[in-house]
């Protein structure tokens, strides 16, 4: 997966979006199996397990919430036994899992600069492509700042888990206000740095390094639509 061209991975994502939007369960399952196989073969198993674990956790939580919401709306537990409702939740979960896996695989096996280069080459203006990557990179900085602020406030006696609901909400202000101030300062500094480095000065931008497509890319791109229509092909063969 690391050596695949970013365009190939973007193709997988776009196919994933189409499959999740309009394809039936058979195609969905086939494509999910394809993405899982590619991931297992193409990256470290421990990394894949981490991605799978976090994706499955989120999907399961959302599925449980959907079931609870359905029960509360219908005001009856028997709705869970209705095939249509449960099937809907299961299909929705598979769609979500498939989308999450394809995006996770893209971002964990592709360098941010490669994503920017690829998006720029397919016509996305460099500024917008770079903003997307900055936003992704900024997540880890935000998390690290949040952890630092949480530790500082905790050593000042902050307890998020104590007191009434109002007190707990108020105590979260002690985390989010410094986080917002620190983020704003950091973004301000970053904008000045980009400005002095002539960011966005010219529409034409050169690159010191560009990725090259290989035979593997051609194989994966060719396989992608085939996997989607494979259930229909299999059905026709059986008939």
């Amino acid at each position: 997966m690391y050596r695949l061209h970013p365009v190939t991975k973007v193709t997988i994502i776009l196919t994933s979006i189409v499959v999740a939007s309009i394809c039936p369960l058979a195609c969905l399952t086939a494509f999910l199996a394809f993405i899982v196989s590619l991931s297992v073969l193409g990256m470290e198993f421990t990394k894949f397990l981490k991605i799978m674990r976090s994706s499955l956790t989120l999907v399961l939580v959302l599925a449980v919430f959907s079931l609870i919401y359905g029960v509360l709306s219908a005001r009856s537990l028997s709705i869970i036994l209705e095939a249509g409702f449960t099937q809907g939740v299961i299909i929705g979960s598979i769609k979500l899992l498939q989308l999450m896996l394809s995006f996770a695989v893209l971002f964990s096996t592709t360098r941010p600069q490669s994503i920017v280069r690829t998006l720029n080459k397919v016509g996305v203006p460099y500024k917008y492509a770079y903003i997307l990557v900055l936003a992704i990179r900024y997540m880890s900085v935000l998390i690290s700042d949040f952890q630092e602020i949480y530790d500082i406030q905790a050593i000042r006696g902050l307890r998020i888990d104590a007191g009434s609901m109002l007190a707990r909400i108020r105590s979260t202000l002690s985390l989010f206000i410094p986080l917002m101030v620190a983020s704003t300062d950091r973004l301000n500094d970053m904008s000045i740095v980009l400005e002095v480095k002539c960011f966005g000065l010219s529409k034409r931008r050169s690159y010191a390094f560009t990725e090259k497509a290989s035979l593997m890319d051609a194989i994966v791109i060719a396989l992608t639509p085939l996997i989607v229509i494979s259930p229909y092909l299999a059905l026709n063969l059986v008939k």
Partner: protein
Amino acid sequence: MPRDLCKAGDAVVFKEVSFSYSNGFTLSDISFTIRSGELALIMGPNGSGKTTVLKLMAGMLKPLSGDVYLCGINTKRVKLSELARYVGYVPQNPWMAFFNNTVFNEITYVAKNTGLSKEEYEARVLEVSTWLNIAHLLQRSPYSLSEGEARRVSIAAAIIHDPSIVLLDEPTAGLDYLNKVDYVNIIQRVVLRRGRTVVMSSHDIDLLTMFPEAKVILLNNGRLSFNGYTRDLLSKAHLLFSNNLLLPAPIALSAYLNELLDIGVEGREASVEELIEKTVLRKDAIGELICR
């Protein structure tokens, strides 16, 4: 537990502590003791693990192996917010902690969390703000303060509840020399009062001359290089050099003058008084030194 728990005995004990981050940086087998009422400097070059040791001390990080004791309390066994009673923490960036609408509320935040009554903390605010010369800032927004004012407010917020141990992370970072001297005066006059134990992490070598009686814990690449006192360290200049640190400027000048002016007393290096006396007599040598 009483606030003056640390009045006697060991304030901080690190027993074979190891810790590592996911990026591979590792702190290995660190052991030292800081007595109650001592001032300790955790020093070392960038990336040596100073802030990590300070955070382990504060309980923000838990050791992977070994134990950290603060006033006899194992930090692995208590929540961070419970340690707040005994520990005051002054972060390197004071803005990371500010969130209240006024300086008064910012300073009293810890006092309120640790259960001080309104009368107690109002009296303490008056006392602390007078010591730190910030009484005129109490009704201002913390975000309108200058860097120096913010650092004073940060100290006030850390000592308002009269903790036994005060931890300062890179307290003199970014300060010019005069402000550094001013900050050191504050630490000596205000923070070290009442037998508090003070621990500072810094790579600022000048602090060694400003705190000549301090305990020094020297780190390099996650390992303990030296565990002793300032005077012992300054007599072993090779330890500083081998840890990518230079001699403090006054000591380096003294050593250079000794060598250049050949004014050492036989068998030992000249004292500061002898240096001053003899360099005044040898003004031509000073001129030569300046021209070099």
